[in-house]
């Protein structure tokens, strides 16, 4: 049984005190541009998942504590938690750097997009 630490209230508890919320950093297209979403984009948003053997990024809720959602980086093989961070935040850079495969691609894309946005403004 896992133990977690809530980055919001600091509660340190068993996994039964928390609620696992699945993959993190999934962008909901309808919140941004509801008019232009292809069926495939919608299906990807709903179902396609990064399912790595190794470092993974997830959403958890501090169920029996402050009730807040937060992000966690966890290894799906050793089940070791590498980092906890805010629900609106990206992983700490050193952890993000350890991402492999689909996650590495994802974070690269995010950073590129951010850079573009920065360039515009």
């Amino acid at each position: 049984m896992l133990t977690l630490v809530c980055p919001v209230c600091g509660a340190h508890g068993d996994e039964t005190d928390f609620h696992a919320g699945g993959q993190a950093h999934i962008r909901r297209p309808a919140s941004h541009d509801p008019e232009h979403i292809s069926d495939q984009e919608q299906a990807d948003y709903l179902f396609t998942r990064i399912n790595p053997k190794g470092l993974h990024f997830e959403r958890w809720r501090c169920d029996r504590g402050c009730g807040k959602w937060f992000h966690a980086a966890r290894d799906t093989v050793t089940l070791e938690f590498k980092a906890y961070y805010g629900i609106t935040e990206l992983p700490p850079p050193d952890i993000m750097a350890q991402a492999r495969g689909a996650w590495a691609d994802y974070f690269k894309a995010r950073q590129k997009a951010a850079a573009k946005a920065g360039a515009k403004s």
Partner: protein
Amino acid sequence: MSKPRRLSSGGSRIDRSSRVSFTFDGKLMSGYRGDTLAAAVMANGQRLFGRSYKYHRPRGVIGLGSEEMNALVGVGTGARHEPNARATQVELFEGLAAVSQNRFPSLSFDVGAINNTLSRLFPGGFYYKTFMWPKVFWKHIYEPVIRKAAGLGVAPEGRDPDSYEQIHVHADVVVVGGGVAGLAAAEAAAVMGARVIIADENAVLGGISDLEDGTIDGAPQAEWARAAAQKLYDAENVHVLTRATVVGHWHHNYVMIAERVGDHDPAIPKSGAPRHRLWKVRAKQVILATGALERPIAFANNDRPGIMLATAVRAMVQRYGVAPGEQGVVFTNNDDAYLTALALKEAGIAVQVVDSRARADGALPERARAAGIAISTGSVISAVKGKLGVEAVKIASYRKGQGRVVSERSAPCDFIAVSGGFNPAAHLWCHNGGKLTFDEGLQSYRPGSHADAIVAVGAAKGTMALADIMAEARAAGEAAAKVALPKAKAAKLAKLAISEDARKPLEAIWFAPATGKYNEGNKHFVDFQHDVTVADLELAQREGYESIEHTKRYTTFGMATDQGKVGNLNGLGAIAEATGKTIPEVGFTTFRPPYTPTSFGAITGSLTKKLFLPVRQTPVFDWHMMKGAVFEPVGQWRRPYTYPRDGEDKHVSIAREILNVRNNVGVLDASTLGKIEVKGPDAGAFLDRIYTNMMSTLKPGRCRYGLTLNELGFIMDDGVVVRFDDERFLVHTTSGGADRIAAWLEEWLQTEWTDYRVFVTPVTEQWAQFAVAGPRARDVIAALKPSFDVSHEALPHMSFVEGTLGALPVRVYRISFSGELSYEIATPANHGRALWDALLQAGAPHGILPYGTEALHVLRAEKGYIVVGDETDGTTTPDDVGLSGLVSKKKADFIGKRSLEQAHLKAPNRKQLVGLYTENPEEVLPDGAHAVAEVKDKPPMKTIGHVTSSYLSPTLGRSIAMALIENGRARMGDVLSFPLDGKVVRATVVDPVFYDKEGARLNV
């Protein structure tokens, strides 16, 4: 064979002054306090304990404690019976009733033994090759026979009268095992101030120190152990657990300890104390001091009663003063077993040693020689005479690796003490992925690397010399304490003067050649309980089941209740020899929790009966009970289904409740209805995202029915939303959905629309809420001195008012799920009962009666209102149930909106909600009945939809049903066929609103 075997003196564990009588297979026997059942039965001259699993061979005790896999017995009777208890761990108490297992009709004469006679036909995995013809025979002949033979003990009868409990604790250091290593490690950690838990599966600490020869500070090591244990008992920061087996180790150092609180004394559970207690410990550091398990040697018929592990024989003599027999042979490949020879000699029991090694010149063998014990080196036991017990053996000359007997001689004896070396008990090391490495010296696996904060010390790590064990254990204890308490200073422990006879290396022997050509037909057992022999393992290799996992599964090697504790390595060694591989090349199967079998009662703890899943109760639950309501589970609630009057049939009472709502007035406990307050400047905008329809436009003081979808576009929940003022809404949900929807709102608020300034507060339990429904509902409210105007003009349908009824603060929602004039009145929960009573009193002149959930369902069905979960099933869209009007076209986005555009969700032939009138108005379609496109005389028939709700409507005096039918709305007037057993029910498709279509009764 039934001559008493208690020695006249000796027995460190027993109290000869206190006799204990007990029964074994109904036979009255007597022993002493401190005996194990194994010792006591043997003391009474019986060594036959049970029958093996496959060949039903007679078996006796082989081991010392929890590794025992032969002497499994049933203990206790009736509801307190426990099957498969290990006789070596069962502590004797007055009146103990034990029975042997897996034999018929009796232990000494067992018809199942025919399997042994035929065993040549039954090699490993034989059942995969036969019993296939004729086909039907498997289910009706072969399997029943096999199943009859299956299993060992019998299950108890009835509900377990005993109780169980669980404890959750944190510890700095958990020490597993109370032998000298565990004691030393615990002491070292404790003196540094660490909070230590030390757990041992036996009744007393000390491990097998009392059976060992080494001394500490000039005294037997057992004395040091006794003193060290006492110090731990006295220490404030140490918790000592005995009869407590550490059964599992999981992620993040989650350690589980199964404590057998009451098994040794039935008075304890009878007094109300738990029988077992499960400790769930979160440890900063774990120290494994689980010692090592002696392994046997595979020789022909090495399973006969009277053949025991050498340490177990020593324990019989020294702990219990029991002689295993009159004349013994010690068969060994190492020096330790000579301690057993010496112990036997000292107890006056004739003994000789057979040592497979060419030379035996270590200190212990020399001591044995000096004591006049005959030693045959370069020898093995090649045959055992006797079936129900050892009668004699053949001793053959042997050189390492020799496969066949060249010369042999007979030797009389009636018991054998065997030792093939020791295997570190590394099981827990592997539970959470620890690695093992093969130790050439031990010829066994020992702990290697581990990712968790866990270390192994002493014999558990393969360290066998006492001095090394103590040094290693103390260092580990200190290091563990340091990790847990970085500031703690290392405390100085007195240096120990340790002396012990040095051991010469053992010489592995995995197979002792047997009398007879090529060992044919001889049984060299490596898994005693499952009757797996070396020949079976070789057969598995020959047939290509080479992966050790294949071998295990094909032969059932290591799958018995001891999970391979005793014979596992012997098997691996035999495979290695047979295939010319090294043992590491052969590999090993994973050890998994639990270390020893653990009662389901302990795992359940107190979560039984009422505590299994506590019932949620509304403020008037007691009243419902008092009135003899029939209940139905709804989520975690139990809601009144109906209120039958004395002797009244359920259907009668339901019809009565319905008609009373239609004609007079009824009252329903709707407190279970989910209630969530949503407040904040952005509450309206937020609810617009959640609901399919517009909520931000709702006027304060008004109510609006809303649908919530999941992101797949399917209906998830529904309910009435009330707006108190600009920034405050109350969201009603279904009873089952309350918690889910509250969490759902929070999730979206926190994870998607994080900029919204909104608070979500579930208030379901804060309010009691009652529906007063029926044409005379207003009269009832009016009679309660409302602080507000209840006229239709002032309080129209779908409106809200807050005020008082008499002294009671209330929120009144004029909403209806019955189609009648109806008010849902909420009051703070603590006023709930008062309001309920007031309503019944004020309503009495108007004929008010309580109604239950079934009446509620019929009332709503007559009106064609859907129930989420009945008319919807998680694949239903708003349009499917005719509620597309509630789906806003204006809103750019709400949860589920985009998915409603996916091809299949707007497909033309989807199932749509319709009403049904059966041709025979008396006929009530069964729930879930399916309509077919075309009736055929036999299946398969294509279905076009199913009945979602079906009732006999007392209001309309006929049956009504709602159904989801492909293209249903286009089929109005069509007659559909529902094939049921032996008949076809025909029904006409109609509008799902059966009663008061224009809603006149609502607006009065």
